[in-house]
């Protein structure tokens, strides 16, 4: 059993933070890597990126959005309870190097994944500009942490309730036009990453994205997580999850994420009826 030692609700209860006792993983994990969690015997194996680790305490932190039955089940776990299985660290760590000016772009829960990368980019001696966005002010997460992890933080909301009124891509474009950016990191919903890459492509700036296809084992054994990058099939769990966004076939990923949409929807609705 992997116990939850701290739990927080963020973004009006739609996003949950869990700090989990997992000393072996905490000792090894690097920014960009993920774990697979399973709540109980019959649970699904769910991949989530580590938003933070504390090797001294032996804990890892995950931050996830409640979108379906499994994440709803996770939401019900209290401090003192835990996950039956946590596997990791999986995936390749982010390639962090000093390149000069770096632009980090995050949307939704992607900000949680972006945070440790941003921090590492700053620690590596880069000047880090950050843009984070959400639908409205209430759904914004980790503003303070992102502020201290970067040199310059810009915020936008779709409805204008906080910061710039509009999408992160507006700011990305503005920054790229005015400054000489060497590297972009964009993590968030697939449409956001796709939109950011469409802009960075025009400026021909290397853009790292973190992909979230459906996974089972996370060790390269099943091929369920295949994505197309530069016309080649890659397994996101071992070859990624981070890839060169300018090469990624986002349209294929968008379709593949819907593989079990109907089944999952019914299953989630049943679960909500049961727990209401």
């Amino acid at each position, binding site marked *: 059993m992997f116990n939850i030692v701290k739990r927080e609700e963020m973004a009006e209860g739609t996003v949950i933070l869990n700090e989990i006792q997992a000393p*072996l993983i905490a000792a090894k994990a690097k920014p960009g890597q993920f774990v697979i969690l399973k709540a109980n015997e*019959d649970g699904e194996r769910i991949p989530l990126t580590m938003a933070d680790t504390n090797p001294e305490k032996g804990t890892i932190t995950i931050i996830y959005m409640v979108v379906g039955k499994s994440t709803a089940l996770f939401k019900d776990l209290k401090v003192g309870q835990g996950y039956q299985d946590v*596997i990791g*660290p999986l995936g390749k760590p982010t390639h962090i190097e000093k390149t000069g000016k770096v632009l980090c772009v995050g949307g939704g829960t992607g900000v949680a994944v972006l945070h440790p990368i941003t921090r590492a980019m700053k620690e590596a001696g880069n000047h880090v500009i950050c843009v984070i966005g959400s639908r409205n002010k209430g759904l914004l997460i980790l503003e303070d942490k992102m502020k201290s992890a970067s040199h310059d933080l810009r915020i936008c909301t779709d409805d204008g309730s906080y910061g710039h009124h509009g999408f992160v891509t507006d700011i990305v474009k503005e920054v790229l036009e005015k400054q000489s950016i060497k590297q972009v990191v964009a993590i968030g919903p697939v449409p956001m990453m796709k939109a950011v890459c469409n802009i960075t492509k025009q400026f021909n700036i290397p853009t790292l994205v973190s992909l979230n296809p459906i996974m*089972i084992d996370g060790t390269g054994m*099943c091929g369920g997580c295949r994505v197309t990058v530069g016309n080649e099939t890659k397994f996101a769990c071992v070859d990624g999850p981070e890839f060169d966004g300018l090469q990624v076939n986002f349209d294929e990923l968008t379709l593949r994420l819907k593989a079990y949409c109907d089944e999952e929807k019914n299953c989630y609705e049943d679960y909500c009826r049961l727990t209401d």
Partner: protein
Amino acid sequence: MPNKKKKAARVPMPEQAPEIRKRNFEEVPTGYTVKMAQQEAARCLQCKKPACVDGCPVEVDIPGFINLLTEGDLTAAIRHIWSTNALPAVCGRVCPQEIQCEGKCILAKRGEAVAIGNLERFCADYERENGTGALPPTQARTGKKVAVVGSGPSGLTVAGDLIIKGHDVTIMEAFHKPGGVLVYGIPEFRLPKEIVAQEVNFLERLGVKVECNMVAGRTVSLDELFEQGYGAIYLGVGAGLPSFMNIPGENLIGILSANEYLTRANLMKAYKFPEVDTPIPMGKKVCVLGAGNVAMDAARTAMRLGAEQVRIVYRRSRDEMPARKAEIHHAEEEGIEMFLLTNPVRYIGDESGRLTAMECIKMELGEPDDSGRRRPVAIKGSEFEMETDLVIVAVGSGANPLLTKSTPDLALNKWGYIEADLETGKTSKKGVWAGGDIVTGAATVILAMGAGRVAANSIHKYLTWGW
């Protein structure tokens, strides 16, 4: 007397009727009764030079255990098997007996071989259900620690052998449940998971520690294991890398590797969805590519999940199908169609990215290739479309590089499998042994177990004498 024995017909294995079993996940053969087992055992001629034993990769003393069974000493019979084969309940069910022990049986030449697999299975099942559960004696503890990476048949064998020889053994498994292919690959209707769980439990009762969720190369490296005081490491990580066909359209929704499909069905129990949380695609018109055991398992699983039509699509002919004969027979009884000498060339999907059809080409057999089998050659202009909403790719598997990439001082062959000495299981890295599918490429349960036994003997010598 021998004359009379020769004429007796092989006792058929009772089975669920095809019409019923094709829609449930319960085991297909239901097992011999004591009477049936003894009747079948009586057919054995007790050969002085038993050819059957030569056919068994671990040389089970077949006439020996059959004799004990005929005499009614079931307790002694199973113990006799255990001395060479730690997992008889598994092997009796899944060994390709027709090309191993039974294929060599003297009676096979003139009629029907003794049902060695069925008898082995019977002895193991009888002991599990009626035995005392007594543990074999173990030798005095040596205080030496061994790490076994991977909990497939190969790793389980090493663990069992070394715990009995007095060493402390820890199995490390990447998945959340131990058993390797026996739990995630081979379906419930062919090998009930309860049997595998009991075998693992048996090892735990002997003192083996089983740590799941441990991905060697990620959670822990081999050098770290040595630092933690392990004196020897055995790698039995299997051949867990799915092969695809590399043809256009392969990433459409509805095309899965057999590994993914069977893992969802077996390990995650997705056939019980939504009672359990992991879904599995419910194909109506299913095509399975390949004709090995993996393909048969996938096809029969699809049938049990309610498919209207299930086809095995294979580029060679019936004679070359590598699956166990019993599985092919069972599959056909269950209504699975064989589309032989047929090869897919591309997949066709709709606007939502879902598979709707597969274009195939007809093949004919040409000259023999390196494997000695006649090479399939495409017949020009014979392309045709086959309607399908689920394709399961079961065309083989390769070496998973996850662990080997993180251990650069481990010598690999050109296909990425670990180089290991066949006599000892030793790899190029000091203190590290390997065996099973990660050395030989995808093979069989009993060969993986045989490699485990060889390595266990070598590890024991190394820990005791330092060589």
